[in-house]
């Protein structure tokens, strides 16, 4: 590892990146991911989802082990966000994609995010039942998580898990429900965002035209077996995207029903985007955005004002070493907050 400036205080004593205190649970799990040990995934998620103070410290140690600094670059796996309205056929599509990726020998982790029940805080994570997988396959990992209490963002654990798993899995999929907000959140963590719509969903077009939704990297029209209506939707969406000045979005029509159509084309489009996109740049931007969100969640508007406002905080983040992980960036902001408190 290079001598990148790493703010002190990001990790508790004894739980450092490889070497110092590597016997810590979090660091050990991180090291297993770095070594490509896919069987670490369930325990990694259990740890990242935990909110106890001790587990949070271990989680930080885990993440440090798979940070760009520890890996000597960005994690190799491609993080793909898949989002779309309920009923668009996401689960069936994901089953088909999973089959195709596995046939190519790619290891796949899927993080399915379900909306929580507001009233009770409980959630029904039903998507798993709808994604077909082979239970004996050690290179497929599917985890459902509830979106959690936090408004306006994917659960912290989901973001952290996507980054961590990308160190070991070839493909990491984050599946979320909804359009608009959900898609924006996914864009903050995924290398490639695919939005899934079904034929005849004119509303989605309206969202793009009104600027409510950001333009995705890949747009998938499902249920191509419906024939002309699916083809018309594909054409309309393509034309609308071009009229909005987007030339880079691939529009793919698929049918997940047997005989499946368009799955290979979709996989190629996702791969092409993954190879073409400036992944390092996008991830760096995501880490900064996530760090700011985490900081704001913890310290609120007052915390932002103490740093001189949101713009100043962004400025400060941009001045940090680009290889720092999100936790380290948050720590940099916290350090600045402490300095400003000391000055007063």
């Amino acid at each position, binding site marked *: 590892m290079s001598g990148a400036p790493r703010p002190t205080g990001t990790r508790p004593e004894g739980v450092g990146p490889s070497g110092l205190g590597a016997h810590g649970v*979090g660091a050990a*799990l991180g090291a297993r991911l770095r070594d490509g040990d896919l069987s*670490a995934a369930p*325990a990694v998620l259990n740890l990242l989802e935990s909110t106890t103070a001790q587990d949070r410290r271990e989680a930080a140690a885990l993440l440090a082990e798979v940070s760009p600094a520890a890996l000597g670059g960005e994690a190799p796996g491609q993080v793909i966000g898949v989002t779309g309205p309920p009923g668009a056929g996401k689960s069936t599509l994901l089953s088909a994609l999973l089959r195709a990726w596995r046939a190519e020998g790619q290891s796949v982790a899927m993080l399915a995010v379900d909306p929580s029940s507001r009233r009770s805080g*409980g959630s*029904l994570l039903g998507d*798993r039942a709808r994604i077909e997988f082979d*239970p004996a396959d050690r290179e497929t990992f599917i985890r*459902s998580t509830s979106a959690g209490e936090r408004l306006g963002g994917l659960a912290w654990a989901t973001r952290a898990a996507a980054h961590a798993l990308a160190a070991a899995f070839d493909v990491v999929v984050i599946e979320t429900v909804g359009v608009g907000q959900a898609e924006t959140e996914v864009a903050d963590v995924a290398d490639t965002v695919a939005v899934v719509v079904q034929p005849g969903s004119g509303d989605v077009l309206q969202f793009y035209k009104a600027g409510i939704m950001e333009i995705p990297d890949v747009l998938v029209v499902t249920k191509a077996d419906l024939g002309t209506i699916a083809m018309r939707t594909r054409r309309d969406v393509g034309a609308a995207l071009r009229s909005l000045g987007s030339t880079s979005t691939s529009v793919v029509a698929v049918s997940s*029903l047997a005989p499946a159509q368009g799955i290979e084309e979709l996989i190629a489009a996702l791969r092409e985007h993954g190879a073409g996109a400036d992944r390092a740049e996008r991830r760096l931007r995501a880490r900064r955005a996530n760090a700011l969100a985490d900081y704001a969640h913890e310290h609120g508007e007052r915390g932002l004002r103490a740093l001189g406002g949101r713009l100043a905080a962004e400025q400060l983040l941009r001045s940090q070493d680009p290889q720092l992980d999100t936790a380290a960036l948050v720590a940099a902001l916290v350090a600045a907050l402490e300095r400003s408190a000391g000055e007063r």
Partner: protein
Amino acid sequence: MMRTYAGHSTAKASNELYRRNLAKGQTGLSVAFDLPTQTGYDPDDELARGEVGKVGVPISHRGDMSALMDGIPLEEMNTSMTINATAAWLLALYIVAAEDQGVAQQALQGTTQNDIIKEFLARGTYAFPPAASMRLIADMIAYTVEHVPKWNPINICSYHLQEAGATPVQEIAYAMSNAIAVLDAARERVEAAHSSDNGTRGAEAQELMEQVFGRISFFVNAGVRFIEEHAKLRAMSVLWEELGRERYGVQDPRRLRFRYGVQVNSLGLTEAQPENNVQRIVLEALAVTLGRDTRARAIQLPAWNEALGLPRPWDQQWSLRIQQVLAYETDILEYPDIFEGSIVMDGLVGELLHGARAEMAVVAEHGGAVEAVAYMKGALVDSHRERLRRIEAGEQVVVGQNRYTESEVSPLTADAEGGILVVDPAIEAQQIEHLRSWRSQRDQPAVDAALAELAEAAAAKGGEQNLMVATIAAARAGATTGEWSRTLRDVFGSYRAPTGVGEASAAPPDADLSELREEVMRLQEKLGRRPKILVGKPGLDGHSNGAEQIAVRARDAGMDVVYEGIRLTPAQIAASALQEGVHVIGLSILSGSHRELIPAVIDALREAGVQAPVVVGGIIPEQDVAALREAGVAAVYTPKDFDITRIMRDIVELVGAEAPVPVAGSVASVNGSA
């Protein structure tokens, strides 16, 4: 017609049972198939484990069907088969068995249930995706109308909808919407078949369509609120006639008659004080016999001990005798329709019609019954939850369960088996042996050729080739149930039906639940994560109501719920439990296969390194509880544990007791074993 739903263990044992029942005065057969046969698996399939011969008879090939019908004259018999996804196959085997007796298919009488939409909604024994399933049904209708004219190719079932919690309005509306989907598919087939360009084609197609309409019968439910249930049947007959006249242009009044068979309600039968079920069954039988104009054509009564386990021949005899007393001792059959002119009955019927028409419109808006499966499923889960809530709160009285619960010791359940039939576990191995010897003795190239033709017919565009023809050829060649289904699955793809639990709305506020939520929150703080439960059904049993209600209540209590649905192998459950990091696992089994499957699931879990406690719910006889606990089950719940909130409290406590190990600790143990 009087029947009892019967079949178990082997074709030979079931044949003996049928002959005894016929000798006792039963006038038709009602065949119960085991779950592997219903879902299209051979006894040696991994998914068939523990299920062979349990809830019905295993039929794998023409040899089994011939043994089942041995000595029973098929030209005289009226045979009802409770078979759906694999109905085309079982009818083909029946046709071939008749050929062996020298009976032509034209002479066969009976019914295949063949209603796939209610399998997606309530019963769970589907095999193929919706569109392919509807094509199979349309093919069977087209085939039987022409070649097996006395056969009822489909029985639209509202029975299972009520078992899944349907209100009378929902039962009527969903059954009628289902019938529309089937008839529309059949009409398409009939019109395609008669599209050759000659002048009479329109008239021919119309005549055939009227025949099809006349062959559709229903299979309904009757609950203990028997006045309202009677009104429901009158409402259904009004709607059916209206549908025939207006949508399908049927004129002949005989063809417009609403024909139905009935099995009275099982959902309301209790495990507590099971003798009370006898009077419930009698009252429910009245609902379908009181008024002559809407009297059932065939009645099956469940046995008093259904909530305890599989009924024995004596239990079924008791149910048959109820019908005989009703028919031959009472004066019920001596009068014209006794509700004619009743203002109260007419008002009740009017209300139900109004509600049902509104609900049918909602289904139509979704694009019809096939497209509305997810909507209807969610609505049923909601209704069932409301029903359970009323029982838990004591608003709906269930004698012996939530009121008048004190009881003397029952002599009925005192024998060693607890008053139920236990299927010999050795049967499964015998059936597998029997199947292998069948496979080794048949003309294999002929089977391969027949299956290849079946695959080709299935891949052809719908309507071009009737699948019944290739299916009968495969049956004749000696193919097996599993081979027929696998061939079609390979072409059509497999399918998982919507679970309905995601659509279920949040629970209304309730003091008990709020208290439970606080406990869940405390547990969450202790665990570091929200308590997470995996709910699933191992084996082939598709009766998912109980599992769904547990899943919804756990969500309402504030837990994260991974609901895996039906038809899971032990390996799938173990993989999911591990990947999802759940704190507790809830399994539900109603088919009697718990003694084999539950220990297999626990072994798979522990092998995967999952130490989370396992709780089991379902129809678990008292004498099996100790064995399950020994296998490592933390708690067992049966139908008498009707208070789901209390079950949830137990589960929360259980997780809390197991929880002193913090998350990081469990990580270390997994780590250590890796």
